[in-house]
């Protein structure tokens, strides 16, 4: 009842992690040091309170797996050891074991790696929270549900998404559906993009559920970011604030080519989005008037932004501010932002320069098996 629940969705796409560990990257981060920092973070969550619960979902290429959940702990417990807390050992060894097992089971034969099943993992996390909520209601006062009172909800359930993959435009609708169900369950979604480009969908997910989104630039400071931004449950965030978002991109993916568009053509009946004028709505089979099509097609050349490009083309007339803000290649965010009077700092200003590399410190439990 008092503990807060945290579900972590970890993107474990081998190819993206390989890219992230290359030395030509600024602040390279490889999978094993990421996992050791992640485990330290998870332990910190369990350490905070005896009643805190935890679930970890892995998004592997093409499949999503539950790596650990505190509701059904594994039956065989690791041998105990006088120097570590039993609960931590259990988490560490279970997660390591499962990750290694699933990574080995991955099919290497095909050339192209399937995209990570982030959406699957996210929906699983929501189903899991739904299950906890149901169980919680059943155990405490099922009188509430039957007497027509508002069913109780868990306090502060939240989902943290640690992603290294770019937006998968095909999953636009599932992601949005997940966001809305998270809103309904009063789940906060936090998101951290550790590698790769900014993701529009995760930004929107965090914004719409009141969570925090961080695009990680200083990857050597991962643990500090995780601790400061994602460890405090929503109740504490009212006292100690977490990094707020910069801009939120409300762009959507079109239904026809799965492009991310900022100006789209929308069917008035079912609200499907298209990146170019179409005669018939592919979703609801509505035919559009010829006149409209002609008018829109005529007007199109003047619209600079309907081409099938992922990033927004800075239009001819755009201000330099826009170009900087949108293109991910030139990060323009200051690391130290001067604070306005009473204003809160935003995500750039986590003080990253004097961080102890927890990566070097290493999490000793269970890491031995990672090879």
């Amino acid at each position, binding site marked *: 009842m008092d503990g807060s629940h945290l579900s972590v969705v970890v993107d474990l796409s081998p190819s993206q992690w390989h890219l992230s560990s290359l030395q030509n990257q600024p602040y390279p981060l490889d999978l094993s040091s990421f996992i050791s920092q992640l485990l330290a973070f998870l332990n910190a969550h369990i350490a905070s309170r005896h009643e805190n619960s935890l679930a970890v979902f892995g998004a592997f290429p093409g499949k999503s797996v539950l790596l650990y*959940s505190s509701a059904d702990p594994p039956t065989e417990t690791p041998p105990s050891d006088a120097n570590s807390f039993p609960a931590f050992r259990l988490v560490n060894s279970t997660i390591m074991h499962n990750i290694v097992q699933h990574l080995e089971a991955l099919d290497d034969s095909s050339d192209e790696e399937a995209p990570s099943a982030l959406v699957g993992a996210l929906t699983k996390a929501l189903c899991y929270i739904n299950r906890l909520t*149901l169980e919680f209601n059943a155990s405490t006062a099922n009188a509430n549900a039957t007497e027509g009172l508002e069913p109780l909800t868990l306090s502060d359930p939240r989902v943290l998404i640690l992603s290294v993959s770019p937006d998968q435009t095909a999953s636009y609708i599932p992601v*949005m559906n997940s966001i809305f169900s998270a809103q309904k369950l009063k789940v906060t979604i936090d998101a951290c993009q550790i590698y790769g480009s900014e993701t529009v969908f995760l930004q929107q997910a965090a914004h719409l559920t009141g969570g925090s989104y961080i695009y990680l630039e200083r990857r050597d400071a991962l643990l500090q970011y995780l601790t400061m931004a994602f460890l405090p449950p929503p109740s504490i965030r009212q006292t100690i604030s977490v990094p707020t978002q910069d*801009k939120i*991109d409300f762009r959507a993916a079109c239904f026809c080519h799965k492009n991310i568009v900022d100006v789209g*053509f929308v069917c*008035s009946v079912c609200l499907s989005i298209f990146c170019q004028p179409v005669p018939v709505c592919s979703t609801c089979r509505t035919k559009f008037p010829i006149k409209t099509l002609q008018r829109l097609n005529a007007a199109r050349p003047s619209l600079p932004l309907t081409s099938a490009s992922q990033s927004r083309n800075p239009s001819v007339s755009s201000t330099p501010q826009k170009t900087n803000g949108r293109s991910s290649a030139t990060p323009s965010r200051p690391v130290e932002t001067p604070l306005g009077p009473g204003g809160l700092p935003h995500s750039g200003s986590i003080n990253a320069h004097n961080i102890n590399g927890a990566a070097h410190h290493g999490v000793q439990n269970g890491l031995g098996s990672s090879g």
Partner: protein
Amino acid sequence: MNVDSDSDISISDYEETENTVSRSKAKGKGKATDKRKKDKAKRKPKDVQAYTWEANFTRSWETVQEDEGGSLQGAVNDWVARGRRKRLLEPQNAIRRTIIRHMVLIVDLSTSMMDRDMRPTRFALTLQYAREFVLEWFDQNPLGQMAVVGMRAGVGERVCDMSGNPQDVLKSISDRHKLEPTGEPSLQNSIEMARNSMNHLPTHSSREILIIFGSLTTCDPGNIHDTLDQCVQNRIRISIVALAAEMKICRDLCDKTGGQFGVAMNEGHFKDLLFELVPPPAQRALPRSSNAGGGGPGGGGSSTNPASDLMVMGFPTRLPDTSPPSLCVCHSELRSKGFLCPRCLAKICDVPTDCDICGLMIVSSPHLARSYHHLFPVKPYAAVASFDAVADVSSSPSCHACSKPFPTTVSQNVADGMSAIGRYRCPDCNTDFCSDCDVFVHDVIHCCPGCGK
């Protein structure tokens, strides 16, 4: 909260309504209910309990069947099973809805509104519910626009112009002293006023009038039936919630224009009637023949629907609260937060709106996305009948979504459409889910955790 789930009524909604409204399932003396029963799109139970002293005494506890263990699980399973069967009956086609709605809310401000048969007065209650209605309506119809007209002293009075901003509308009906009821109402005058304000609207949007009517008379300058005919011509849908009793002309207005009519029996029923009008009216892509009452304007359902159009919309970028303040185009004030028009980069305070500079319609994409689950429903899961089906597939011992272990024994006396071993299988990815997740996936998430779509 209930009405939040558009027309896809969820099990929990169903239960809640059923419970709060009437455990005893007493058939109310609702003369108003017959009309709504015809409407297939609405599936909420409408047998609302009348005044308590009118209701039959029923032993509600006897309708609940305990199983031999004294548990109520059987009764609960029945609910779940009903939800499942209903889902299987639903057509796979995408649903068409008029989501871009325009509504004129006409509030009776005649002296009859001062009656105290609803506490504290009809007037105060109406204002209170109207405020809640407006909030809920804009929440579910983010692209809609609403105007408010008051009926008093024999004329229609414009209280609020057509606006897409819920705050504008709320502000206009927040001050009760400006709306103090006097005189007689005039249905014709107010409907004419509403009709005129909606004449110019594009054809693809819906035009609706909602009247909250407390009087038993109307004081009209001409023949109200002419007005009615014009409304039918203009495809305006009129719905009326009456607080006193049914009037022939009100019934006609609603029936002929395809709206809904209801007489509120008590405070709770009043609210229910009002909130039924929140979700957008649904239409099937392929016309279902028996959709008689709900058809109405724009509901012709032919594939060459003149009421459809392709619109250009822009999806803005939201500026953070800490960004340097700059002038907005709508109020010309210095603010730090706001949205940037993707075409002309003008700064706008609120969405949805039309860009003042380039005229682009600006909406935030989540607004649109709220309705997408109607378009791509998750296929119903098949109930796994016995362990034979489990043995051959390499199936896991626990639910694919929430990892709850499946029961290992066959349960007895399962309801129709339920699985005896508690497994439900997605036809696409062939993974098994528990019954809780089955309900949750179809009613809330609208996305299968196995296949991710």
